[in-house]
């Protein structure tokens, strides 16, 4: 990573960063994390999810809306019920965002090694 490449990358990935922010925000709440944990086991209905919490069902629905808008939860009709399912794919975007830093530090350590060993 260089400063130049980072600038270019920042421009082309601005919208992706916006969606990464949505993912971070979605995860930054204990109830939403717990919902994801429940969905990690298997898909569940909204009612079933709500029955695991003390808070009201509308409150759970609100959390689910946020998780859906971040792309972490998707709805799947099953008979007459609407089932919620985990979709972990958006987390890749966060990983991609960090990729430039990974390259940067690998390069920097190699430069440090060359400097220290040759000076």
């Amino acid at each position: 990573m260089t400063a130049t490449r980072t600038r270019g990358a920042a421009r082309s990935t601005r919208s992706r960063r916006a969606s990464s922010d949505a993912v971070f925000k979605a995860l930054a709440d204990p109830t939403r994390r717990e919902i994801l944990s429940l969905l990690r086991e298997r898909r569940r209905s909204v009612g079933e999810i709500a029955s695991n919490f003390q808070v009201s069902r509308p409150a759970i629905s609100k959390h689910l809306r946020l998780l859906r808008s971040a792309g972490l939860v998707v709805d799947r009709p099953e008979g007459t019920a609407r089932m919620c399912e985990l979709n972990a794919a958006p987390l890749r975007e966060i990983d991609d965002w960090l990729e430039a830093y990974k390259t940067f530090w690998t390069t920097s350590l190699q430069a440090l090694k060359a400097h220290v060993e040759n000076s």
Partner: protein
Amino acid sequence: MATQTLDAIVREIEINAPAAKVFAALTEPEQLVQWWGHPGSYHCTKMEADLRVGGRWRTTGESKDGSPFSVTGEYRVIEPPHALEFTWRHDWGAHEDQIDTLVRYDIEERDGVTRVRVTHSGFADVASRDDHERGWGTVLGWLRGYLQ
């Protein structure tokens, strides 16, 4: 050798030199400007460092197209020659990327070989700063496992 989690970047390298020499290269401005950068891409031209806990550091340089860049921060841990920790904020990229993150060097010498590990963290804490919730790194961890 490299390991990582979603909220931290960890990189390691082995250097055939004493730990003290490595620590000096990381902290002495006249040395840092010699290695920090890449010929033909970007290079660091100046470093100012107030090497004490709470002291500020600042590097400036030029990227490939000649445009200036800078990185600034504050020293948090200074334990020569084993550990160095400081905050990091660069002035390039999107505005929302210009945030305080944390960089830590762990330096360990054994049989004349020094292992240097750099950990760059704090991305997630910053991204969720409105909430100040911690502990979701675990969730990221298992979700990542689920992805793979």
